[in-house]
């Protein structure tokens, strides 16, 4: 959705890094197979992780093969071959993309709206195909957007509540990855916390923009009456994100992974925290630049 769910590359083993890249390539090709060229351009780390997690908990062993790619036609690289996890992740990506575009159309500025209007026709057919295969998910995603809009319209100042729709959507999405009752409980909480993380991470990322443009942001609203500086609000938001990430670390220990444990652990315990740190660092640098000039 936003690319916050990623690996912490420097701590990955070479083999894990290759497997992760192969899943990334596999998902890209799957998007092409299922939906065509436009869909391939929406490839993101978030859904690569979803595919990796689905494969990690599945019984079925994923297959890999060295394949060429139009981006790099000379060199063949390992690529994950078509399987259920990739198909599902691709469908999911298209359904959520459609909802995101719908959401952007409502609450963004003129220029962005224009861009979204141009993109929408390309996303419509993939959405219809995916929604036909996953009607339940399409319905949930619609409800999630509606619930999110209602909260934002009401000016919800409670961070937990604001994150709830995304959290619940991902909770349901991850629960579906397993049939084992215990595993489903762990996946459910992992999904809840991951959705919460993604939503709050986006809120942290948009903090300054929302402040300038007067957009909805739960962290701004929570601290509205306290007279805090921008840096203090950022630190407060970072605390909420760190708390969420550390809870994910606990869930991660309880997942029964058949394979890719190194990748899953890397993302949940290090990668997510890395995303938060990266955003914080970027904001600090931007601020320094503004002061310097």
């Amino acid at each position: 959705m936003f690319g916050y769910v990623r690996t912490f590359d420097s701590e990955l083993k070479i083999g894990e890094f290759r497997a992760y890249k192969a899943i990334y390539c596999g998902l890209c090709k799957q998007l092409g197979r299922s939906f065509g060229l436009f869909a391939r351009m929406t490839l993101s780390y978030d859904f690569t992780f979803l595919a990796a997690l689905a494969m990690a908990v599945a019984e079925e062993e994923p297959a890999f093969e060295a394949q060429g790619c139009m981006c790099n036609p000379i060199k063949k690289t390992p690529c994950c071959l078509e399987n259920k996890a990739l198909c599902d992740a691709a469908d999911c990506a298209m359904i959520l993309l459609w909802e995101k575009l719908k959401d952007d159309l409502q609450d963004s500025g003129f220029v962005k709206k224009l861009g979204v209007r141009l993109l929408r026709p390309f996303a419509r057919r993939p959405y219809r195909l995916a929604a036909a295969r996953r009607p339940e998910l399409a319905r949930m995603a619609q409800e999630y957007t509606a619930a999110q809009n209602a909260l934002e319209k009401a000016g919800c100042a409670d961070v937990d509540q604001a994150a709830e729709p995304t959290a619940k959507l991902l909770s349901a999405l991850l629960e579906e990855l397993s049939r084992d009752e215990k595993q489903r409980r762990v996946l459910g909480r992992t999904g809840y916390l991951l959705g919460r993380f993604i939503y709050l991470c986006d809120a942290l990322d948009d903090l300054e923009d929302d402040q300038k443009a007067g957009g909805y942001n739960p962290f701004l609203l929570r601290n509205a009456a306290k007279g805090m500086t921008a840096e203090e609000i950022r630190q407060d938001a970072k605390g909420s994100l760190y708390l969420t990430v550390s809870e994910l670390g606990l869930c991660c220990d309880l997942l029964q992974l058949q394979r890719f444990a190194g990748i899953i652990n890397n993302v949940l315990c290090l990668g997510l925290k890395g995303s938060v740190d990266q955003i914080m660092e970027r904001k600090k640098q931007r601020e320094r630049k503004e002061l310097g000039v």
Partner: protein
Amino acid sequence: MTDPYKVLGVSPNATDEQIKDAYRALARKYHPDNFVDNPLSDLAGEKMQEINEAYDEIMRQRRSAAQGGPQASHSQSGYYQSSQFSDIRRLINSGRVNEAEELIDGIPAAQRNAEWYFLKGSVCYTRGWLDQAVSNFTRANEMDPANQEYKAALNQLLWQRQNGYAQHAGNAQNVMCNSCCDICTAFYCANCVTRCCCGGF
């Protein structure tokens, strides 16, 4: 039973010292202190039991003499201090959060004491409402600063807010000092101490 060496993630050729290290690392990871109020605490408990059994099994096998060894029974009792809201605590401990929350919210504002805020925080935490959990635990601590249970819950979350990863229970001695108020924890500590320090020999 599954291969005890596999459970601890060690080779059957590993030395006793390596096995002890692996056992210690896993016991820290799944220690009940890390999962207080966590809706998945029972799974962590199962995992802990599996690890304990695997360690016992290996040690039993290695002792070759077929004696039972010091095997304590696993008691799974929760809180034992006096509580005004024992029914609510029971519901939370058995994972019935919705019912617990209904009871909690039904308590009139005048009767909401420190324990009420602590339990409200526990329900929020279980739901994944982490920020509200922090503010409720904070309130509980303000109202009853002497209570170790409330303090431990708040400190754990504040530490996570600060550091971005959960504080593993630390070494056995440490745990011993931190929270003796919980029978379950105390049992595990005793278990760790006997295993780690005396190695079951």
